[in-house]
């Protein structure tokens, strides 16, 4: 890229940034207050925390599509693992005992924190994604310490577990289809449905996020496939 082109890009981005800041400062006070609307209907939502209620009830369609996007990314990563059969990734040649004992001691704590985050999401900050991300971080830690073998080509149970969260969510979403509605929870069953969906989401999100790390295409000795 020539020097003038680079200067032009920098100048344009600075100008755009200044224009954005000026536009943000010109905005009038917001006329809609969504928080009061959410709080007014919180008892119908089935959970006590407004963010969880928005995420899993009022805007559940976004969450459904978000899980689908996660899965699509995983499908992409799985299909990029090369034509050679997944021989598994190489781990550290000399596993360090201190790292192994620390990781082994932390693993149950990771599971405890994840389950707590999932349970606490109904009342306070927490939720399915945070719990799934913590579980995935624990899995990556165990892999890097050498306590978990590299993940091979996924068999049928793992494949089912990867999509189970999305399928459960889809099932709950299409349950009211005979009444020509989609993704509506009856208020008396909302808490149970949301809990079931969150549990399924946690499992699937944890597996997908770990898979995004553990199935990254590795070095092939014969790179010319």
């Amino acid at each position, binding site marked *: 890229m020539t020097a003038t082109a680079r200067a032009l890009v920098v100048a344009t981005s600075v100008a755009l940034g200044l224009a954005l800041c000026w536009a943000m400062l010109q905005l009038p006070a917001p006329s809609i207050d969504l928080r009061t609307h959410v709080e007014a209907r919180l008892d119908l939502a089935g959970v006590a925390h407004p*963010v*969880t209620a928005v995420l899993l009830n009022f805007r559940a369609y976004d969450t459904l599509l978000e899980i689908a996007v996660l899965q699509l990314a995983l499908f992409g990563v799985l299909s990029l693992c090369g034509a050679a059969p997944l021989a598994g990734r190489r781990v550290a040649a000399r596993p360090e005992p201190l790292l192994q004992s620390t990781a082994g001691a932390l693993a149950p704590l990771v599971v405890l924190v994840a389950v707590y*985050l999932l349970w606490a*999401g109904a009342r*306070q*900050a*927490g*939720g399915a*994604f*945070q719990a799934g*991300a*913590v579980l*995935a*971080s624990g899995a*990556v830690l165990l892999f*890097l310490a050498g306590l978990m073998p590299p993940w091979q080509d996924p068999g049928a149970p793992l494949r089912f577990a990867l999509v189970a969260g999305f399928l459960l969510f889809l099932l709950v979403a299409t349950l009211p289809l005979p009444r020509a509605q989609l993704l509506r929870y009856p208020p008396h069953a909302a808490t149970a449905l949301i809990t079931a969906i969150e549990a399924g989401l946690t499992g699937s999100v944890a597996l997908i*996020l770990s898979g*995004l*790390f553990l199935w*990254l295409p*590795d*070095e092939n000795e014969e790179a010319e496939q």
Partner: protein
Amino acid sequence: MSATAFDLLLVLALLWSGLRAMTVPDLFRAVVTFIVFGLLIALAWARLDAPDVALADAAVGAGLAGALLLDTVGHLRAKQGRPPS
């Protein structure tokens, strides 16, 4: 008044670490600066009264993304440090 000073300091640190993460010549340092950027963003979420977002960003943005990027940097270095075959 001290809250605004903290906010300004955090914003300056965010901008500085963000710019440095993109421009530092060494890739390893760039990724580490990016992890620092992720943690500062988690602080910003906490300041914005968004604890769920702070949890998610700390776990995913700083944790998982940092692990992915560091793994790729190590892979890159191993490939470049390999003696020419």
